[in-house]
Structure formats: C-alpha cells, structure tokens
C-alpha cells in the first residue's frame, strides 16, 4: 500500500528548514502553489533560496513570502512582472540576492539536476553579460556556455489532479516548470485540486510519474493570485 497523501499544506511543509533551497512552480500566477506558499509563510522557515521563474505580484503568494523576509536569494529569469513591487523594493534595498538565469537555461538546469546530469553546454547567453565568469567552449564553430544542474531541498508545485502514488496531471499553461521541479526536489510536494486512487489516471497521459513526488496535498479550490490581488488581499 502506497499512499503519499498528507493531511494539509501545513503538514506538507512542516520540515522545510532555515537555509533550504526551495523550487516553486509557476509562470506568473499559472501554476503558482499559493496554499503551499502560504503554509510556508506560517511555518516560519527563513534564509531560503527560492528558485522560481518570477517573484510574484501584489502581497500574496511568492510576493508575500518575500515580503515576510524569509528569502535570502532568488534564482529566476524574470523578477519584475507588472504588479510586482515587493521584489524590486527588496532588491534595491539590498535585502535579497538575485541570480538571473535565462528562462530556457533555468528550465534545462533544473531538468539536468533532476536527471543526474552534472552540467551541459548551451549556446544561450554566449557573448552576453549573463555568461560573465562562466566557462565557454566552442562546439561546431559556435560558442557555448557551461551551465550546472540545479537541485533543491524542497519543491512546491500545483497540479490539476494527483493520485495516491504521486502521479500528476497539470492544467494547461500551469504545467510550465512543475514537471522538472518535481524531479529536482529532494522532497517534492504537490498540491492538487483533485486527488484520486492509484489506477484512476490514464497511464499514457500522466505527466509527472509518481516516483518524483513525495507528498500529495488535496487543495480543492486553489486561490488565484490575480483574484486575491483584485480583492486587495495580503498574506498573512
């Protein structure tokens, strides 16, 4: 009997420790695991390194985690979406470190980390400031940059449906970084709007096989960042 369900978002994130590296799924609000992030804010872990494509908007979700002062460093591709003020303010004040990575390189570094590939050569960013200090090498007459695999202590993602074995389906463009992050987290946690018994999902259509998932939390009606922001919400 395998059952990866845990009782609540709070139970799922209870062991995230100070200084942990945490991957958080989402591209903008699509795929952002708001309830897991809010549980992490309640839980109190600090000095986190957050690996996520963006930095959140308004005063909820990822932005709220930053605003609570829990994040030491952000690794991302685009930290200044419209409606994003928390990160820019912290960054200008020197209160958060930023490692800027091209979006495709970020995706590939996370995939490599999860796939046991130590490092790879990509043409992206060759000749730009984002290759400064990095090892360069020419393949087929073209300069490539050496990039290293990324792993994290924890991964927090959102799914449309999951089963008790941890198999996950996603919703449209909410999929984005979640499948790779599931592979790269030492402990990978999914919040899913629907949780079903193993054997319910079509084995041909599963996007993230259960081997990559450690904990499944049922969050039946996940909040959306835009709806919370329109309502003027802030967390906590």
């Amino acid at each position: 009997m395998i059952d990866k369900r845990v009782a609540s978002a709070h139970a799922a994130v209870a062991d995230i420790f100070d200084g942990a590296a945490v991957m958080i799924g989402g591209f903008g609000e699509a795929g952002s695991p708001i309830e897991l992030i809010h549980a992490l804010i309640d839980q109190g872990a600090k000095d986190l390194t957050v690996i996520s494509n963006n930095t959140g908007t308004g005063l909820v979700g990822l932005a709220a985690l930053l605003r609570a002062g829990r994040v030491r460093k952000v690794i991302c591709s685009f930290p200044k979406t419209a409606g994003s003020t928390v990160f820019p303010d912290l960054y200008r004040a020197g209160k958060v470190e930023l490692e800027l990575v091209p979006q495709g390189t970020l995706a590939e570094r996370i995939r490599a980390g999860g796939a046991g590939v130590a490092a790879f050569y990509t043409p992206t960013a060759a000749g730009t400031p984002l290759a400064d200090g990095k090892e360069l090498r020419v393949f087929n007459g073209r300069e490539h940059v050496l990039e290293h695999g990324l792993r994290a202590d924890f991964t927090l993602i959102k799914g449309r449906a999951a089963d008790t074995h941890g198999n996950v389906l996603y919703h449209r463009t909410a999929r984005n970084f979640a499948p790779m992050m599931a592979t790269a987290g030492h402990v990978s946690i999914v919040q899913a709007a629907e949780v079903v018994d193993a054997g319910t999902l079509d084995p041909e259509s599963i996007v993230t096989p259960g081997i990559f998932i450690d904990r499944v939390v049922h969050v039946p009606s996940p909040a959306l960042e835009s709806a919370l922001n329109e309502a003027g919400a802030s967390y906590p």
Partner: protein
Amino acid sequence: MTTSPSSAAPTGWSREGIAERVAQDIPNGAYVNLGIGIPELVARYVPAGRTLVYHTENGLLGMGPSPAAGQGDPELINAGKRRVTMMPGAAFFDQATSFAMIRGGHLDLSVLGALQVAANGDLANWSTGADDAIPAVGGAMDLVAGVKRVFVMTTHVTKEGEKKLVERCTYPLTGRGVVTRVYSDLAVIDVTPRGFELVELAPGVSFDFVQERTGAPILRNPSR
C-alpha cells in the same frame, strides 16, 4: 532630397503597417514566436490562406487570439502573462520541452522588439544596463540563440530621436550576430555579412532619410 533628422514628421509605416509588412514575409505553416508587445500585432495581419502555428514559451504550441475581456482561463496565458486561447492542433508541454523547441532550432521565426540592433546582427533588447534597473531576461536570450530567423520590429529611432540601428550595441547584448532582418517604421533592412542592406523603403520615405537615422552604412543592394 535630404530631410534632416530634426524635421522628422510622422511618415512611413504605422505600428500596424509594420506588423502587416512582417506578416507578408511569413510562409504558410511556419512555427512562430511573437515577442510580447508590438510583435503580437503581426498575428492580425497574416494573409488569408496562410496558417501559422504560434508558440508561447511558457508552454503552448497553437496559441490563439485573446479571449473577450473578462473571459478566458487565468492558467491559459502567454509569455506576457495575458490570457489567450488555443487553436485546433494545440499542445501543452513543460518548460524544458518548450525551450528544447527554441534552442534546438525547431521554431522557424521569432519576431522581437529591440533597444539596439547592430550592423553585425548583435541585438540588445533586455536591459539598458541602468544601475537602478531590476534585471530581467525571460526567454529572450534563448529565442535569439535558437530560433532559425529573428525578425526585429522597432521604431527606427527612439522617442528622443536616438538611433537604434547602430554600428555596435552599447546596451548589454541579448545575443551576438542573431538578427536576420529589421522592420522599422521607415524601412525593411536585412542584416548581412556586409552589414545593413536595404530591402524596402516605407511609402514616402527616401533612402537618405533612413540612412541619416541609421548609425551604420546601409547598402542599397541593387540586385533586389
């Protein structure tokens, strides 16, 4: 007759005119990534009878137009984080797959904006390098490194009249030697091993008018 830069009156193509001109150059069946903002206009002007497949790097091939205001799905969005729709034949995929399409050379065309384009094809479009700016790059460097052809859509000069087509970029680069062709309000200009080459002037715009507003020589390319 030569018109001095200071007398630059509204002339040449409008934004929509540039978009329409770009659309003419995209063949049926092309896989295309349109950058956020002005490049998105191109989709409105695709000639009848041609079907393009739009890629949005956040994980969708077969992107359709925006839904009606207030409609749509907040988790069916484009790279600009705005709601979109999907067309028959659409497919969703993760970011590693999406950028495999980009980096692996599977997309036929990317249409992007620019801060500067150099005569050697260098592109700067992600940062002015200002000290207080929050750096943000998204997928721009991946797109220019991987997509087969990169079209730039831009005003020929900035609002302040500064040249955007230059000998060498002074802003931080997005990629080296990556631009295929520039579509401005004044002209269509190829980037070739010999530098800028004129393809076409906008209606009512003279070659000299364009050359004066360009920071590097433009070849007239009589062979066209």
